[in-house]
């Protein structure tokens, strides 16, 4: 049919299944390493992991992070080291959730939860301060009234998630490369990531379909 083949294809599509997910009505399951709203993690003893080094602020392409470090007060230190994050602000009107801050952080202090459904009706709500970002005493992210949390969004938010990334070097399988955290201790490595040569691997990075 030559030129007219295209008409057959578009007509055939009429009887195919729709691919749309009607978002607010039905929600897809989020991947484990989804980039959502940030959290500031704490050690098992309640100390903050942030050392106020400002690397996250330096790497941020959207310039949405503002950090100021300060010396730890001797009688009541906030973090184990010499310095701590005195001011920590993230402007969510700017953040693009690229996760470069998480990559840059030397102490796994800043990581991302899976929350993305949040909206504000004023500017000050959009700028999260340390009070809102630091995890609570159970080690879970604090929930603000304008955020829509789903089951499981607040778990697995720490640096453990990053360190056990499936794209990591298989030689590090089962080796703990992350620090302990409040409420969980040192988490066990994720199982089932051993590189298996007998299994067909999708190494060319192409999609399975088509």
């Amino acid at each position, binding site marked *: 049919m030559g030129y007219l083949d*295209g*008409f057959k*294809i*578009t*007509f055939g*599509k*009429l009887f*195919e*299944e*729709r*691919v*749309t997910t*009607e978002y607010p009505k039905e929600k897809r399951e989020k991947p484990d390493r989804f980039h959502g709203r940030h959290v500031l993690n704490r050690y098992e003893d309640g100390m903050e992991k942030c050392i106020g080094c400002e690397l996250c602020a330096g790497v941020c392409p959207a310039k949405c992070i503002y950090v100021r470090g300060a010396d730890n007060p001797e009688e009541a230190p906030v973090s184990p080291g010499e310095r701590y994050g005195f001011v920590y602000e993230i402007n969510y009107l700017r953040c693009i959730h690229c996760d470069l801050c998480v990559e840059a952080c030397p102490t796994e202090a800043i990581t991302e939860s899976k929350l993305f459904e949040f909206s504000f009706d004023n500017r000050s709500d959009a700028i999260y301060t340390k009070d809102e970002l630091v995890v609570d005493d159970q080690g879970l992210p604090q929930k603000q009234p304008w955020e829509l949390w789903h089951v499981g969004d607040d778990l697995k938010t720490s640096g453990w998630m990053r360190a056990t990334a499936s794209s990591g070097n298989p030689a590090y399988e089962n080796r703990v490369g992350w620090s302990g955290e409040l409420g969980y201790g040192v988490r066990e490595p994720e199982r089932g990531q051993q590189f298996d040569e007998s299994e067909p691997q999708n190494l060319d990075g192409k999609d399975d379909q088509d």
Partner: protein
Amino acid sequence: MTGDPLFHDGVDLVDIGIMGLKVVVAFGFLLVATMFMVWFERKLISDMQNRIGPNVAGPWGLLQTFADGVKFFFKEDLRPENADPLVFRLAPYISAVTAFLSFAIVPVGGVFKDVPGTTGTVNIFGRETFLQVADPPIGILLLLAMSSIAVYGIMLAGWSSGSKYPLIGSVRASAQAISYEAALGMSVVAVVILAGTLSTHDIVAHQAGGINTWFLVTSGVIPFIVFLIAATAELNRPPFDLVEAEQELVGGFHTEYSSIRFALFFLAEFMNVITMSAIMVTLFFGGPAGPIFFGLTWFWPTIWFMSKVMVFLFIFVWFRATLPRLRYDQLMDLGWKVLIPLSLFWLMFISLKELRASNDWNWIATYAAAAGGLLLGGTLLITALRAGDRAYQKDSEDA
């Protein structure tokens, strides 16, 4: 007696009332049909792309167009500083009014029989009348006139915006509309020659004898194909939508328009799709003529008419879902070097056939002369095209 039988015995108040009713009904019908068409296009094209399309406003998203229309009314009406105030305001109305007027000549119902005379009429308030707003003696020429005037709407909109993208878009639009109007007109003339009348009503009456009397068949399909392609170009619809090529021209001639003025352009565009489909049905597919089965006799022709129009609305959307946009030189080549020679040749062939039949000329002599003429004309045309190509190549080598 020709023309609407409503006016055969003079004009009184009832006649005027019936006329007014017809105008209001046609206006309302066209508006609703346009709303439906916008919804239909969005829904169908998303079906063809494995999407869902509008489905929130009303059942199956049917009220989406209505919601959009209401939204347009409440949007800020912007006018660029460089715009010519009067022309900028006038242009959308030229587009919308011409879109409305073309539909007036389309017979949308009435029982058509193969018997000439009192066909295609319905009885309203004891008066016999055609189911079309007007049946002027110039008939189908009104369509050509209106589509020519509609070009002014687009041209003036682009020019008066005082901005470069609308200007380029409108220049393209006018060049395209003028080029394709020739092919469009010549395929209309083929039908007019066969029917021996310009009146749309009489054209439909000629096709009332079943499918083999449709002008699609009796004119030999080619005028219809030329008309379909030229009409798509005339409507500025894909694959001929260079006027609104977003990648190059933002929105084309209506880039600077907002609020209800934009809505008028939008309305005119989709209304023209319906009108063109209706004209095609009238010219080539027997309009409302069709078998009448049972019950209400006046009801069936309108059903036939609407179903035939629906088929063409579907085809226009199908074009859009399937075909990529043409390049500008391809568009002009198709118009001037393919469609116009083809329709011109076919027009002459049909005229010759009709002349031979009416003057009782000799078969062999007529067609031998025709073949000779075709050979001569074809050779000349091909030589001319080759010469043009050579000159073009020489130009591009020099450059």
